[in-house]
């Protein structure tokens, strides 16, 4: 069955989400991944927005985390103060899985979504942290969406907006951050994960038709490819539910 890369990326993220997860969604594909998980493999997962909406009934795809569509039939409509407190508090925050995106990523999963070039006179200015740095600081697991390009998988970030593992296995502890960090990076070519001990990024899966070497050619730094397997393509059922239940207006897909 025909599928697009965007559908593949969305469904790989959805498969990572479990029934016990509270899913922190950003704008765009991350929101769609949360909706896909809820409709396909994790019906008891909880959709959660930094704006203060928890367990929204998403009948239409929101185009921003403050879209009025996130406010419909929630468990509570509160605000930013409550949503970030719920992530900083390990009792609830320990169950949150973050979904983030960025302009640059390094080998320890640290993210830049602020500037490229000099901070005081940037080449490109991006949106900034929003809640991204907060989520990456607080929660035990996060999924990162990236485009696989050399200028995005970089040796050194121009600005570190959100913490991954900082400078290695003890980075977070030394900085005073709670345990946690990114668990996977989903790109248009494959899936990267992080080694349990070294916290270094490695290639976990490549999409059909793409070789691990192709992937390495799209990064400034090298990663271990010895553990990489071909990714399981979307099933017919996954694609049907994604297209019919999650984005029937094709706003993201």
């Amino acid at each position: 069955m025909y599928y697009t890369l965007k559908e593949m990326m969305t469904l790989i993220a959805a498969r990572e989400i479990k029934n016990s997860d509270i899913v922190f969604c950003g704008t765009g594909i991350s929101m769609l991944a949360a909706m896909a998980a809820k409709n396909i493999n994790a019906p008891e997962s909880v959709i959660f927005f930094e704006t203060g909406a928890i367990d929204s009934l998403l009948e239409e795809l929101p185009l921003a985390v403050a879209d009025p569509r996130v406010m419909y039939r929630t468990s509570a409509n509160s605000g930013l103060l409550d949503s970030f407190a719920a992530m900083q508090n390990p009792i609830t925050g320990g169950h949150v899985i973050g979904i983030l995106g960025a302009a640059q990523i390094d080998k320890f999963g640290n993210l830049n979504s602020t500037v490229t070039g000099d901070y005081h006179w940037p080449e490109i200015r991006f949106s900034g942290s929003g809640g991204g740095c907060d989520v990456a600081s607080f929660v035990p697991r996060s999924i990162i969406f990236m485009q696989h390009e050399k200028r995005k998988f970089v040796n050194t970030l121009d600005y570190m907006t959100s913490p991954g593992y900082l400078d290695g296995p003890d980075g977070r502890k030394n900085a005073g951050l709670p345990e946690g960090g990114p668990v996977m990076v989903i790109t248009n070519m494959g899936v990267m994960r992080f080694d349990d001990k070294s916290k270094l990024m490695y290639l976990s899966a490549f999409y059909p038709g793409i070789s691990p070497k192709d992937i390495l050619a799209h990064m400034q730094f090298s990663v271990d490819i010895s553990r990489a397997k071909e990714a399981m393509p979307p099933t017919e059922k996954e694609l049907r539910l994604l297209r019919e239940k999650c984005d029937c207006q094709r706003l993201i897909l």
Partner: protein
Amino acid sequence: MNLKQDKTMDLKTAISTYVKHGCHLSIGGFTINRNPMAAVYEIIRQKIRNIHLYAHSNGQGVDELIGAGCISDLEIAYAGSGKFAPTCIRFRKAVEENLIRVEDYTNYQMTLRFLAGSMGIPFLPTRSSLGTDIVNKWGFSDKMRKSSDKLPDQKLIVMDNPFQGWLDTQKVVLVPAIRTDVTIIHVQRADIRGNCRIQGLTFADVEQAKSAEHLIVTCEEICDNDMLKTDSDQNQIPFIHVDAVVHVPKGAYPTACYHYYDYDPKYLKNYAQKAREDAAYLEYIDTFIHGCRDHADLISMIGDERMAMIAADPETGYAKNLDRR
């Protein structure tokens, strides 16, 4: 504090009374929802300049104030308007051309800063941003901070947990309180004394409102002073915080107002297109802002048909099946 029984005034007067050249301002709402857009447009019409703006994630309102040249300094967590502009376009241009000075925080930090201001304390702690460039890189110069009595000398301070390891915490980031000269929010209902009732998410409006020296409230519906005293558990802001109440139907347009109207995808798409090019953007400002006497004029220019398309469905609170492509 203002205890007057009737704080209603027109928008022109409210803006010219409280929003001054060089003032420190914050506006409510989030990205494409409940930004006080009528007030934003009135600030632009009155050509108020050199504003120091505080925002967490106000997309549309921030971008239009920057684009019109009203802002000199910005403390912000996020400048984006959802799918319509993942990075706000005039914001991006202004930063890349060094036209405004920016200090970056996170959304939680900005919210805590407003909360600290609302509580009258100098700072609040969080565990967010330890080890990152939010802590390490500062946008405002030392000189700028030291020469202004409205700014603390430091962007933030990292310190060891003074309760030695309590709650498994070794370090915290202290973020300084914000105390604005004026905050403007748009709400669904307010009474003439200023009691406010917001429907849907409050974002950080309540904290922003209470950290201000002066608060302007624009509202969809104005109520007499009895009405909001019933079911007052649904009110968020009591009148003691409010200085001006302005009745502005569709006052958040083109952003959304839950249970009243959706955001207008057509307006926001046209805006994003015009914002990419300087000449087209000037034309946009002339037509949609300076070309309108007031907000009602803009709404009538947009027309009943478009307003009907974005009218909220009473059950869901948004416009169902609205064409948002």
